[in-house]
């Protein structure tokens, strides 16, 4: 450290003492900043020394997120095995949902497909179509009783380069075909909703 920066540091140290902050303390100024400088404190707002300290406190605050991000960026990259440990654990607790019965010629044999597997099927159908991303789906109705009508609700996002009416029609058609092939659900309707945070910011549940 140079003599100049040392003396500057020493001056700054003094500047942080209450004797040089027109009677205010860093504790008080920090809390004032935390409150969004409300209610307005004239004695702070009109003190040059307090203003100087407030500016430094603000600067420190604005650097804080960058500090942790810089540390994150410089950390060694985790090996794939680190993630695999977690994935192995969550794989056994996938969100399977209800069991949907499948008919079998032999009455003594029961076959079923999980709700989670049907949702995965719907995602796969979407993944095979360019320009659309199936985010999630829901089977509304009594799927556990054969023949009961079920409404399939699908939330998607559409990439800006895709033609919405085309990809939505294709998704609808392909999902209907896949469900008819792999399940015995009595699909009463397929409702596809396009997620649009900008237009519909509250509807994210």
């Amino acid at each position, binding site marked *: *450290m140079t003599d100049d*920066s040392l003396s*500057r*540091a020493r001056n*700054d*140290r003094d500047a*942080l003492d209450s004797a040089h902050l027109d009677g205010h303390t*860093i*504790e008080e100024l*920090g*809390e004032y900043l*935390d409150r969004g400088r409300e209610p307005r404190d004239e004695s702070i707002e009109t003190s040059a020394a307090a203003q100087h*300290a407030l500016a*430094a*406190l603000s*600067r*420190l*605050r604005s*650097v*804080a*997120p960058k*500090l*942790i*991000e*810089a*540390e*994150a*960026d*410089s*950390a060694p990259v985790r090996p794939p095995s*680190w*993630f695999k*440990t*977690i*994935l192995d654990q*969550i794989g056994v*607790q*996938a*969100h*399977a949902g209800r069991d949907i019965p499948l008919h079998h010629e032999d009455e003594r044999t029961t076959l079923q497909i999980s709700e*989670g597997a049907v*949702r*995965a099927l719907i*995602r796969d159908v979407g*993944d*095979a179509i*360019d*320009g*659309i*991303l*199936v*985010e*999630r789906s829901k089977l509304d109705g009594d799927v556990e009783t054969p023949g009961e009508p079920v409404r399939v609700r699908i*939330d998607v*996002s559409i*990439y800006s*380069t*895709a033609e919405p009416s085309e990809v939505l029609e294709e998704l609808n058609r392909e999902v209907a075909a896949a469900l008819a092939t792999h399940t015995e659900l009595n699909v009463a309707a397929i409702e596809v909703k396009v*997620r649009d945070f900008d237009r519909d910011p509250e509807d*994210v549940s």
Partner: protein
Amino acid sequence: MASLPGHDSLADADDGSLAHRAADGDIRAFEVLMRRYEPLLSAYAARLLGSYTDTDDVVQESFIIAWQQLPTLHEVRAVRRWLLTIVTRKSLDRLRVRQNHDDIDDHEVASPTESPESAADASSLEDALSRALSALPEDQRRCWVLREIGGYGYDEIAEQLELPVSTVRGLLARSRKTLMREMEAWR
């Protein structure tokens, strides 16, 4: 996955899409979210815990909890905030266990830089503050990180660390003074 125009994989999807996919049961989407946020969560946990071993455990446990709780997450745009909250909770649980066992001798202080040289040798302001943060006493560092990175209020910090609010105020003020001096010295 099909090649989407300009988006060849889930890696390009936004947090909200990934959170929905993961809640729907897509493990691949969850993996993308994990890779996206693991460095930040680990850096944050290391600052709270001061130990690499504990950081590893806490972040892994946090991801497992996140997977379990994803179907109940309503504000999917706030994934980052939500993950930080889980990591905070798990980190503080871990600290309480550690305090109860009183075995604080066997953990190393997490410092992303090798030497506690003065701020003047740092290559950037972030680097200088990073060193100064490492040099702070643990309780000061923890309060500052919870306040400035975690975004917690004084009362919440006091409750989580089981300290009087007045103590938290004092610790925050001292940590801020030290870091402000480093910051000014570096300029």
